[in-house]
């Protein structure tokens, strides 16, 4: 059933244009009818062309002829990206491969999943309006947009070409960063000493210096704060320029230690002088073309009705919360497995079952919160759950 899509398949190109048009028209309206039409159209294409996906759907009794609502489109587990190359284009057309961080593993213990891309246009068109809106909201839609100093606590894309995060930061720097922007990693790890010196300078010149954005993984911030505590400046309280912000993403699984998010935010607020309202968490993954961001910076700056801190996404993506026992959407406010339908994933699979749990929240349930991993067995016995980390240790 699965065919090989031809390079430059006109159906795919036409579809990409429709999604690109949505991404660039600046509308944030949740247009359910438009989303549903495009999602079903994309499903038809991916059912036919994505390696294995069609057979997966058929085995579940789901085909394009039986589906008229995107909620019925089968979601593949993100771990499947560790098992196979899931792309709906000719393999020769691959121009980019993003790999997962390697801190999570599939059922085989294989460390890294891969997203194959034949175009970056959708990926970039999706990420830019989102990062503008939720990390740099004062510049969202402002034609006189002024660049900002962005310091990235991650590798530059030139040295980590398979990191979607580095790629995203690269785009943010290119489009939004000023001349003082740059990367703080050297040889793959955070070079904390010059970063601390730089932060001290920013702090001392807070009055004249415009706001600064620090972007990186959650663990990079832990590393920075540890280094600050171990440095001769441990007793200094930094106060980054007014309006400075932090964008952090990712978790701690596989790291030497975990820090609860509220503790991390307390430390960022107290040690770096960045207001809690200006700390933004991003929820994303290498397998997804779109990302989701905390709402509160956007709401605090753009005014209007403010809700609780929650994740908000673009109109071309939908997040659902599924009851694992029934496969149905859970009721509002109840916890479920997070499933994402992302129209930016035209080249692979748009419907993904993540390894996370979450629940809908916010103003008329417009957002969601991530509650952690669907980790598996409870500690009711002495059997090893043989989870991914244990399997990895076996190898």
């Amino acid at each position: 059933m699965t065919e090989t899509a031809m390079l430059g398949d006109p159906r795919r190109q036409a579809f990409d244009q429709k999604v690109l048009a949505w991404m660039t028209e600046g509308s944030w309206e949740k247009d359910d009818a438009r989303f549903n039409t495009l999602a079903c159209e994309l499903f038809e294409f991916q059912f036919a062309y994505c390696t294995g996906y069609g057979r997966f759907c058929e085995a579940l009794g789901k085909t394009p002829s039986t589906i008229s609502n995107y909620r019925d489109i089968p979601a593949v587990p993100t771990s499947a990206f560790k098992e196979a190359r899931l792309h709906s284009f000719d393999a020769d057309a691959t121009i980019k491969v993003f790999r997962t961080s390697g801190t999570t593993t599939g059922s085989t213990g294989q460390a890294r999943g891969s997203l194959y891309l034949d175009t970056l246009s959708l990926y970039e068109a999706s990420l830019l309006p989102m990062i503008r809106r939720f990390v740099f909201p004062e510049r969202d839609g402002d034609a006189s947009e002024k660049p900002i100093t962005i310091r990235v606590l991650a590798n530059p894309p030139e040295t980590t070409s398979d990191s979607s995060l580095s790629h995203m930061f690269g785009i943010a720097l290119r489009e939004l960063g000023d001349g003082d922007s740059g990367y703080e990693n050297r040889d793959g790890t955070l070079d904390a000493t010059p970063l601390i010196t730089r932060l001290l300078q920013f702090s001392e010149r807070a009055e004249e210096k415009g706001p600064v954005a620090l972007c990186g993984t959650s663990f990079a911030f832990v590393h920075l704060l540890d280094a600050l505590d171990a440095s001769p400046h441990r007793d200094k309280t930094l106060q980054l320029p007014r309006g400075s912000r932090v964008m952090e993403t990712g978790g701690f699984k596989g790291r030497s230690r975990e820090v609860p998010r509220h503790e991390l935010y307390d430390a960022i607020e107290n040690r770096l002088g960045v207001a809690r309202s200006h700390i933004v968490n991003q929820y994303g993954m290498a397998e997804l073309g779109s990302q989701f961001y905390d709402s509160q910076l956007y709401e605090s700056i753009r005014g209007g009705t403010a809700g609780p801190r929650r994740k908000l996404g673009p109109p071309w993506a939908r997040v659902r919360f599924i009851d694992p026992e029934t496969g149905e959407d859970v009721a509002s406010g109840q916890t479920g497995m997070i499933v994402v339908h992302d129209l930016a994933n035209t080249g692979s699979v748009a419907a993904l079952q993540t390894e996370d749990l979450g629940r809908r929240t916010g103003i008329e349930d417009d957002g969601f919160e991530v509650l952690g991993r669907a980790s598996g067995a409870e500690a009711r016995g002495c059997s090893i759950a043989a989870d991914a980390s244990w399997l990895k240790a076996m190898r």
Partner: protein
Amino acid sequence: MSAADRMDAAVRSLEHARSSLDARNDQAIVAALAKVFDVWRDPNSDCRRELEARLPGAAGFTSENVRAGLNAGFEPWTGDAFAQMVRNELGAIPEGGQRTAVGHPLTSVVLAGSIPMPSLLSIVLPLVLRSPVLCKPASRDLVTASLVAKSIHTVDPLLGNCIAIVPFEKEDTATARAFFASPCVVVTGSSETIQEVESQLAPNQARLFYGHRISIGAVNIAAIDAGSIASVAERLAIDVSLWDQLGCLSPTHLYLVGGSDTQIENFASSLAAALEAYEKQCPRGEITIAAAAGIVRERSEAKMRNALGHHTRVLASEGTQWTVVTEHDATLRAAPLHRFIRLSPVADTAELINTIAPMADFLAGVVLAGFAEDRAALARDLKDLGASRVCEPGELQAPPIDWARDNQPLLRAMIATGSPPRAKDGA
């Protein structure tokens, strides 16, 4: 009174209780403890009935599963079997005042999980050696330890006075310090827990650790005739389902040795039917959404492997109650537990041994079916690899009382050699 003060008071009380045993001879102590096992073995005893009533609510198992698990687990645990185990380990028990062996002045016992039999044994064993027991119950089961203490007290109040159940939070470091100051420490738990406890112990403290383990099965399906497949599957379904697959003797992977694709599919279907039937008779308990999501994810991954052209098959209940995944290879994959079993083909017993060798350090039990004349050699190889229990289908969850869990002696490791004094708190 703070938790740490309560701990100190418990320790003082246990020291006093220990001295009250001085007048007892070993035979009387062993006889009293043997009687405790007979009491627990009786499904109509007060302690059994109370445990059956309270454990489901405390630990999340269904009443049917608790009853079935206790019936199976206690069946071979007679008082006589217990006394024989003591004799096997310590030698003949003298009739007079002579002591066979003496344990430490105090033993701290950390329980884990909510399967009652190991909890009972962990509390009783130090008492054989006259060592009072300071017991931290499992956070998921605050019922069993107290009932065990009560049952011992009912049979023999002096021995019962030698037990103090002291629940405390992991984060309560002051109490933990006092608890782990005992001259002998016995811990059941995950590798992380064991590592954490070990880091707190002084070199002169005796220690006995029981880690989390994995169990598996091997089925020589080519050698099992079609008429016997269903009964083998039924017995394996019991091994998988008792205690909702959460015990270290719960098999999570079955390796199918030899056999054609058809034989493998038939066996998978039989096992699925047996699990479905067992679910009706003995339903699985409630599980968290995280655990259910883990099962769904593993099912989806297997279906995806099938879609990618591998010979993988998923047979499952409508909800998450049970799952059989037939894999196309013998790669060790995640085990989300809660009645989720993987069937993996291996060509022969040599491949079986090679496949499970990487998990040797964590291997507990192996159930074998259909090996006939090859069984003895295979069992020997498995024991050499590290399996502490090799048995027939349907028996895995009912080990004899002298089962050398983690290949460790039950009593000998707790005998004091020079009986070190109780360490000062913080030692």
